């Protein structure tokens, strides 16, 4: 993480994610750095999934917010290495996800090739806190989410899957 003059960092860090608007780009871990040199600001973003269509909107939002904050010379750049991971979601980000009814991810790691009986992680329902939950589909409304349901409160919920 690059240390930046706090003002420019704060502006970029406060931009909400277009698909998870309860999180800022900093809380999501997409904002990879902000540097200022003279009057110019460069902000780096790390895309989540290869195909995440929101990255163009994130870049445009960061650019517009920084300009609106009085920086005339703004550059937004992508940083692909190291790749984004759900481990980059901050503690505040995880709490806000849960408050919005989206179960936060566990520690990242590639899904293992399982040939035996399926063993699911224990995932708490973000609505009622119950632990009798099940995965309905590994894939959901966006690339980063899976669809789950709680057998305690009978409500479906989304969950950020580890990557």
């Amino acid at each position: 993480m690059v240390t930046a003059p706090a003002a420019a960092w704060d502006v970029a860090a406060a931009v909400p994610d277009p698909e998870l608007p309860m999180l800022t780009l900093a809380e999501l871990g997409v904002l990879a750095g902000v540097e200022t040199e003279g009057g110019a600001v460069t902000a780096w973003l790390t895309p989540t999934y290869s195909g995440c269509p929101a990255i163009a909107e994130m870049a445009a939002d960061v650019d517009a917010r920084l300009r609106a904050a009085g920086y005339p010379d703004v550059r937004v750049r992508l940083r692909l290495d190291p790749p984004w991971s759900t481990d980059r979601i901050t503690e505040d980000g995880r709490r806000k996800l849960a408050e919005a009814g989206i179960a936060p991810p566990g520690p990242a790691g590639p899904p293992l090739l399982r040939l035996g009986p399926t063993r699911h992680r224990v995932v708490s329902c973000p609505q009622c806190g119950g632990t009798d939950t099940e995965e309905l589909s590994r894939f959901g409304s966006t690339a980063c989410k899976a669809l789950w349901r709680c057998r305690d409160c009978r409500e479906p919920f989304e969950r950020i899957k580890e990557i």
Partner: protein
Amino acid sequence: MTDHHAMPGHHGAGDDHVYLALSEAGPEPDGEARWAYGTGFSDPLLGVDTTVPAGLDGADLAAYCLMLGDDALVLAQRLTEWCTRAPELEEEVALANLGLDLLGQARLLLTRAGQADGSGRGEDELAYWREEHEFRNVRLVEAPNGDFAHSVARLLLFATARGALYRLLAGHPDPVLAAVAARGVLELAYHQEYATAWTLRLGDGTPYSAARMQAGLDAVWPLLDELFVPHAVELRIGADPSALREPVLRTLAAVLAEAGLTVPEARPLASVGGRAGRDGVHTEALGPLLAEFQVVARANPGATW
């Protein structure tokens, strides 16, 4: 792919396209752009250092990125064909998600190809304006979807092999290719897990589901070996795929054994005078796929939305 940027003068005062008005409305009162498309941020390698490292040949790197990019692009298109046709809504969403991952990888790889060869061709130009013989994908990805079991079988073969290749490429000297691969490893792991789970479920299900799954495997198996036959470009770029043949076959055999299925004994589909997908020699399935994929871009060159 992205929007096409308008040619100068293409959208004059007389153009009343509603979405143009939206995209050009400018910042909203709170300073946020209303819509990102058309704002110049759609380059998937925006601001990334794209210098070709010393010791790598730009033309070879471009050709290699086209091979992998075309694999991803064509299979993304096939997966997309399942939308509105999948057996359950959850599977439709899953297949579309897998296609989206591959499309994202294709965008990065095609963009890299257009830079590395010095042509300056963008992702859209490469995706929409090349002819069938200019595509460098293996024939496995262009084969028609068939039934759900065929598609699962194809996905199992591709994801297992591509995940193994991406693990290899994550250490490649080209930093852009390495970054795409490092991201792709984890995405392909989800694809492999999805295909493996369905192979087990169908193979270990009823006699009827097992027979359908076996038929799918038998149909796509002859297309597997092409993934491991090295092309001269792959050897020069330092990515010999023949090293993957044995570990990938071992992984597949373990899955099929667990599923109660048989490893097909079918021989690899022949090449044409030693030439196959990597040389632009394709099956009859690719032409109709590209016609559907490219028709809108070609009917409205330079259009924006």
